[in-house]
């Protein structure tokens, strides 16, 4: 498992609707803050990149020292962004794909308003379990 990993789902208006620190490193508030900062800055690249390819998995789009930002372009321009320091592309891809499935389930809930923050504890638990499995 990666020592540092910060996972964020960004809605199509660039508003984060889900955030989780999924790294195994001890949690520090200031780092979470730094991670969000990197992820936010990476949105610039994502916006450009998303139109150049049909693939959903955009791989690593940005790096900040040894931290890499990987992006997965999900339904209706919802973006999964993962800040991580591990190198296993396949693990990240699998992680994204499974989270994508979870997100689709949330999305298909008729009571879910697209663009609102995901606070379901079930979703959170599942995402963290996936992170342990793949990252």
């Amino acid at each position, binding site marked *: 498992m990666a020592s540092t990993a910060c996972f964020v789902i960004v809605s199509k*208006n*660039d*508003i*984060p609707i889900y*955030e989780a620190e999924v790294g195994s490193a001890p949690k*520090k*508030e*200031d780092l*979470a*803050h*730094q991670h*969000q*900062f990197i992820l*936010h*800055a*990476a*949105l*610039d*690249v994502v916006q*450009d*990149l998303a139109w*150049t*390819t049909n693939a959903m998995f*955009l*791989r*690593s*789009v*940005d*790096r*900040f*020292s*040894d931290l890499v930002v*990987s992006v997965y372009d999900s339904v209706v321009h919802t973006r999964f962004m993962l800040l991580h320091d591990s190198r296993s*592309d396949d693990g990240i891809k699998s992680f994204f794909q499974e989270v994508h499935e979870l997100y689709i389930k*949330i999305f298909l809930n008729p009571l*879910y*308003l697209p*663009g*609102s*923050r*995901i*606070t*379901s504890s079930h979703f959170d638990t599942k995402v963290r379990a996936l992170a342990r499995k793949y990252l």
Partner: protein
Amino acid sequence: MEDYPEELRMTPVSLVSIVGCPELHPSISAALSSQQPPMNTLALPDFSKASILARSGKARDPLAPPQAPAGILKKDWLLKHRTRVPAAVAALFRADQVSGDPAQWLQACSDLENLKSAIQGKNTKLVVVLVQAQASDELSEDVTVALRKRAEIDSRHMIVLVEQDETEWSRSLSKLKNVFAELCSAFYKEEGRRIKARIEKRNFSSVELSIRYCFKVAVYAEFRRDWPEALKFYEEGVRVLREMIGTSTRLPPTQRLVEIKAVAEQFHFKISTLLLHAGKVVEAILWFRKHIRSYERVVGTPEVAFLHWEWFSRQFLVFGELIETTAATVPDTLSPRFGTADNALTEWEFQPAYYYQLAATYLREKRYAIECSSSVANLTTEASGIPESVMPSVYVGQYVRLFEQGDTVSVLPLSDTEYTSYALSEAERFQDSYEIIALFRKAYESFQSLGATRMASACSRGMAIEYYAAGDFSNAKQLFDGVAGLYRQEGWTTLLWENLGYLRECSRKLNFPKDFISYSLEMAALPLFSGSGEENRENKIKSGPGGSPTISRRENIQQEVINVLKRKQAPDGTNDEFDNAMEETTHLDIDQISPLRMVLTASVAFHDQSVKPGSPLLISVSLLSHLPSPVVVDQLEVQFNQSDCNFVVHSAQEDSPPLDSNLHDQVVQATSLTLFTNKWMRLTREIKSGQSGKLECLSVKATINKHLVICCHAESPASMEDFPLWKFEDHVETLPTKDNVLAFSGQKLIQVEEPDAQVDLVLNSAGSALVGEIFIVPATILSKGHAVHSGELKINLVDAKGGGLLMSPREAEESESHDVELLGVSTVDGKELKEEVDSIRKIQYSFGVVSVPTLSEGDSWSCKLEIKWHRAKSVMLYVSLGYSLGSTEEEALLRLNVHRSLQIEGQIPLLVTHQLLRPFRREPLLLSEIRSLGGDDKKCSLAMNESNMFIVNARNCTEVPLRLHSMTIEPDDDGKQLCSVQQVSGISNGHAVIAPSEEYKGIFSVNPRASSSNFHLGDICLNWSRDSSLGEDQETHVIMKQRLPEEIKYSLVDSQNFVFSGAHNHAAFILPKSEHIVSHKLVPLGSGSQQLPRITITSVRYSAALTPSTSAATVFVYPSEPKFNLETSCSTSDECVS
């Protein structure tokens, strides 16, 4: 990059030396440096200076054991090779120096010997150059051979320069250049090979030497432009250097690390330059990444961490500058998809701004480290003090202390503690903030031009934090404000939180209480993800002055605002902040786009859509706050565009009576005005509607803690936007009002209608109008409750079938005539309104405006509208009365209107036809002639000099009787001469009355006096008017008409109660004014009230039927009498049908 010595920055250039003949030196060195590749020239004017070429250092005893080197690289080694160690030396002799005088020859020989001894022990090559004035000055073979022998050189290295002849000169010079190039290449190759052999044989005592050899080999390779080899050995050197970190023990750990990094920096710089100049951008970036990765974690002890970060930041800065100067672009061959397997780089890594931004980030890291180190070091340095006269040593990355004792100056090594305090004192002298800001600004501008707003704002935030750290709060606030805008828009609350924390502190420092309050409230109202988080010092530094985003922190911040507000009136005056800047009350304005909308939102809905003036109406005011703690509102003021409707709600807790006694405000007491987080507080009030027009709720002012007034713009529930930041999956969307319909359709404005007009407008009309007459429509204004001031009556005539205008388009073009025309308006007393001077009067064909005199209550006024129809047409008459209730300006603005309309048909009154009766036909029957004449309807031939009967029929087409005053034929000029017309039967006693659908016949005798083929008799003129007296005469008229016998048929239907004798069906003729009796014999079959057989009489001419009513055909039959009752019935007398 500018800090690096020049020899490091420039590509090494071969060095050659020329000795003697100083007058030729400029031209020779110019020629050599223009060579490709260029050569630098070390020009020595005469042979006495040749000693500087000699090895300067002391000769090492070859038998002494090899000493461990004191450092890795000597600082001046590269410089030495670029400026002092030539690859070849040329001794220049003039031809006459060697050929003539033996003393001169001897001198030349000894000079040559000196030179040879100076370069002895080195591989430096010797070239002898003989300078001749002309090509013809042949030197004897012996001299050249002797000289060559003396110099011990190959004949190829003996060159003759011809000074005078231009072509010879350049030819011989190029020969010299070639020789030099060849010798340089050989020299550097040989030197390189010599050192390389040591590496290959591992013939060195320490790892430092190995690195030094690598460097030297690479530099020699660079001298001869063998880039791949240079690169190979630089990389080898770096590899060995990296391995050395853990193993070397020569220096104390801190200084060792510093030295290694300094050397690594040089190596890395060389490699990057080589790669970038070769256009291998991707390789350079990958190399840089590797370099960074291998040194990132080599921080050293915490006290000297700042040294590491400074060095680390410099790596980024220098690499960024390198990329910028070489104008590296993304190679075309690279896959445009970044981050894939075949392109591991990201887009930004090609941008210098990326490196500047990182350099700034790490420089900031250095600043933090210095802050940490200084606080620790302050305690220790007081005892030991900062060592004096510390200077860089001869080795790269090393520092020594100069120790003077008497006249002797010796160099002493430093201990790590001494070095640390020295480095710290040096580092503290620099203001890193300005450099960090400059770097961030550079990156910011670059990213901005690339359109990467988020990266740019990240840089902008970096600048702001630096300004904040440097104490420049106004600049910091301005930058933070800009960045906060982006985070607000994109809803990155954690980042926004940090930003607002800085802004809050900035406004505290700048003494802006209003900003402080608004930033604090916004922070307190932010939705946050994380719920935990402990405060510690490190957090404080990294996550800014706002602290970590937690619920408890939000509550604290809200409490702080309240404290700031309360401390204002604290008597002890402990308040040190905002004491002079605080105003009596702080006003915050929140509109629909304000970020403070989360703090307080007001939604206002009227329960109705429109209301009569003065009548009560219900209004719902709902307030929502996202602040974490409950907010107690002292007073709520709701403001409307009509200030009469404003009202104030006071919280019951407030004991003091309201100070601002706006008399027109309605003051209401409410039990408690407390806003709980995320819950709507709903108030429903009844207010009186104001004047007619729009009544809109403008704002809701909430007074909190007596000194904070938050003015919220009122929002309609129907058009209210949700809070993008407060959209949570599990949040139930709450509605501002309990009534769902109101929550989705409620509006903050209501239409107050006009008051009902209490004036009646009556239009009378006497049926349809007739074409040609002046039709009068009386209009009456009756005041029932309002006085009429400055009244105005507008009359409009519109085609009832649509189309608006009362004339056909064709006619409109041709003439001014109208089908229906409004002629005028007259008052009842007959006085024309024209006479009134100030009255408005404007009558056009279909439109008129007439002013109405001032009427008091209960009065009435009437006028007559005169309308003339020129054509039969149906017309809508619209009359509207506009008036105001008083004559004052205020009242005059409010106008009431009454509208009435009436449809009036226009009819043609009389249909006139005519026919001619001729006495008899006297002319022969000439069919063709008659036909030709009779072909035209309008024309018929009359007998000349005979009286022809001319009958004119005028048929009344209307439903009212008309009075015909005269019927004449007015002959025109032709007619008067050609014939005479006499009226045979005229209208008796002044006029004739024509009932509806009746005809009047006038008979004329026409006597033509001349024969004419085309003869116009004249015009028929009818003079008529409406018959106002409708009498019974009409009936007699009708009866008079019918002087014909009538044929009738009658039929009897069997009845079950009677049997009868006689025919069932029969017909009879009845003369006028006579009776006809039909008799039948009936035998009743039962007693009681019985129905007689029904008789139906039909008039054949008119096919009209008559059936007597049931009651008339019922008889009562007595039961006791045995005798048959014979009865005659049904005397049908008159079956006149009109």
